């Protein structure tokens, strides 16, 4: 699936009737994001970068570089149009079938000529092996310049100082690629916009503590996607303002109930099978099971960005960003998040959708499950699956597994 096709799908999503403004806005933002990539590829007026999702996006917006998160794009394309073709192409190239399915889809898309040709690639090492290796395959494929920021294992003072130097070295690389110096004032503005979005994001999370949950299950992943792809833009701030208003109104009873009855409050302790948004809807409508909070949106701690120290703020944020923090460094980060979510959101249970090709994620299951039970008294369901490939475990099979879990929760 080419960029233009995903763009069309996002535009179609935007033009549909949605009960929530935030959903229409989400599709609008995604359409704009894809339109920028499509335009950059077509006109070459602005440089196009393929970016690993853990690289601070604000820097790129500040330099008017158009980002394309190839992994997220692969996820979107696979969920919209199927993934087997991409997997086959990746396997023919030599990528092992045991490698992360998202990365395999991305490699398959690149080898199949479905990714836009970037001017350069930037990624961050340290979060997962598969991501870094796969981006190297893309570098080789496109034969373009590459910059890898080396994220250390922990965001302790030495780690942040080290990563700050990495970002300081990234700046001249970007300047040489774009032929323009970084406008530090512009960077401060983007960091400030990112901060504003994060403040609103945290407000949303605070509101999600309410019972019943003020957010539909099918919407939570939109937030982390918007922040990953657009932090540092006014568009992202506008989006989070709308979400914050909607959840506030929901809590205040100014909107109709989102589900017949809230019977279970759950967390998503990792990702969810993106190929089946319907599953989340089904949980909610059929079983009153609300995803009250989830790992990829959960901001732990109070740390805030400071636009007066933009690069330092970005270096620090790289370690506490919800999409990165649990996966970097020791499992302690992840454990503390799930336990805090369990206690803070009055959960009945937690679900760990375990993507069977993700080593980094699945190897934490035992510790997370044990600690969640011991320290928060909350049971965890582990449901093997794939994020984009329904042939691994189907939606029906997942429903069966979830129903069993709901029965156990009911009996408690």
């Amino acid at each position, binding site marked *: 699936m080419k960029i233009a096709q995903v763009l069309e799908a996002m535009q179609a999503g935007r033009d549909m009737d949605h009960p929530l403004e935030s959903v229409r806005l989400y599709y609008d933002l995604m359409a704009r994001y894809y339109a920028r990539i499509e335009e950059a590829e077509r006109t070459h007026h602005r440089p196009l970068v393929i970016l690993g999702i853990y690289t601070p996006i604000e820097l790129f917006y500040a330099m008017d570089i158009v980002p394309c998160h190839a992994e997220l794009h692969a996820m979107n394309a696979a969920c919209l149009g199927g993934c087997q073709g991409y997997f086959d192409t990746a396997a023919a190239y*030599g990528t092992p079938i*045991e490698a*992360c399915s998202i990365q395999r889809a991305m490699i398959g898309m690149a080898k199949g000529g479905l990714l836009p040709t970037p001017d350069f690639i930037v990624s961050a090492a340290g979060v997962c092996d*598969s991501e870094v290796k796969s981006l190297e*395959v893309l570098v080789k494929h496109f034969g373009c310049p590459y910059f890898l920021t080396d994220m250390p294992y922990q965001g302790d003072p*030495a780690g942040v100082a080290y990563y700050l130097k990495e970002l300081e070295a990234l700046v001249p690389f970007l300047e040489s690629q774009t032929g323009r110096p970084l406008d530090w004032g512009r960077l401060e503005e983007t960091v400030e916009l990112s901060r504003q979005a994060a403040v609103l994001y945290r407000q949303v999370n605070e509101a999600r503590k309410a019972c019943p949950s003020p957010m539909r299950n099918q919407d939570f992943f939109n937030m982390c996607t918007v922040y990953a792809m657009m932090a540092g833009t006014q568009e992202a701030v506008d989006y989070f303002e709308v979400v914050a208003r909607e959840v506030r109104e929901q809590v205040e009873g100014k909107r109709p109930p989102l589900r017949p009855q809230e019977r279970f409050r759950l967390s998503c302790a990792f990702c969810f099978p993106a190929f089946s948004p319907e599953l989340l809807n089904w949980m909610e409508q059929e079983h009153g099971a609300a995803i009250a909070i989830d790992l990829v949106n959960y901001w732990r701690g109070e740390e805030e960005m400071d636009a007066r120290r933009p690069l330092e703020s970005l270096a620090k944020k790289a370690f506490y960003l919800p999409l990165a923090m649990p996966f970097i460094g020791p499992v302690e980060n992840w454990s503390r998040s799930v336990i805090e979510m369990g206690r803070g959101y009055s959960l009945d249970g937690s679900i760990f959708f375990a993507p069977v090709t993700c*080593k980094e994620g699945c190897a934490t299951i035992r*510790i997370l499950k044990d600690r969640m039970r011991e320290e928060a008294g909350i049971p965890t369901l582990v449901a093997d699956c794939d994020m984009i490939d329904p042939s691994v475990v189907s939606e029906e099979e997942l429903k069966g597994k979830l129903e069993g879990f709901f029965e156990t929760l009911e009996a408690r």
Partner: protein
Amino acid sequence: MTQELKDVFSNRHQVAQAVANQGKPVMGWMCTYVPEEIIHAAGAHPIRVVGTGGTTTTADAYLYSNVCSYARASLEEGFRGSYDFLSGYIAVNTCDNVRRLYEVWSRYLNTPFTHILKLPHRADEEAVEYFAGELSDFRERLGAHVGKEISDDALRQAIEVYNRTRTLLRQLYELRKADTPPISGAEVMDILLAGLILPKEEYNRKLELLLSSLQSKAASPPKGEDRIRMMVVGSELDNSEYLRTIEELGGVVVCDDLCNGTRYFWDDVKVNGDPLQALANRYLRRSPCARMRPTSERMARSRQLIQDFRVEGIIYEALKFCDLYGEDFPLFKDNIKELGVPAMLLTRDYSVAGLGQMKTRIQAFFETIRG
């Protein structure tokens, strides 16, 4: 001597237990980026933690069945109690599997001291500085655990002992450059594996004896004409049967780019200056593993070995579920294309199961090389 060294690895738990019985703390390490010199300087005895064949039922339940079988087999061995004598367990955030294994090991096995070293992915000045800080913390924590300050002098002595091992092993590899090497690849692996277990002083003495006997010996084990000079590339390999199979089928393994092979010993630590800085420098800038960047450095080293040892064929072994080496193979193959040396990927499980199927594939590979 070769048999004696082979027995060391076969009886590794007894050998290490005997050291522990003498009152010396035994420290298990998990990755060749752990500077054993610091452990040695602490008056402790470092050994590599490995698994054995067989099922990994318990480890699968604590890690996950998609984790590489080396990590699971090592954990299984821990759960079996084979490593109960360990006073410490030291890992590095080398790969996702090892860092997660470290966490499970630390939580569920009662090893008194555990530590994970944070290794940068690059080897520039800043990275060396950062890693030197890491080593300094490790030195302090380990010293506190063993109740002994780890002095610079002790570090320097340890560096000398370890450099001696490296020199001797390089001499051993030098012999393999001959048209008909005096020792098989499988035997070399047995020798290397013993070095992961024995105290290095004792190991060095044995290596010296071995080398003098080999230097005066005519070429022997890989008999026969027309043997294909093979190199084995990949991750952790501690099973000499693997190489024996290759050699029984008509190859002679003359060199490697393996975790327990050249990457373990190829580069010396500088003896001058601050020892911790020298260790940080050596360990970061040594022959890199597939997790280090830029990949070009690793590829250049591999190409050099291929040329120096006149390699005619390459077996690239990757453990199933190892993203680092599995995903690396197409890149590796592309990087050696210009040398015209064929390479074959053999994905394997840590246990020797599947050797039969492997034989057929190796035979077919040899046939293509021979044309």
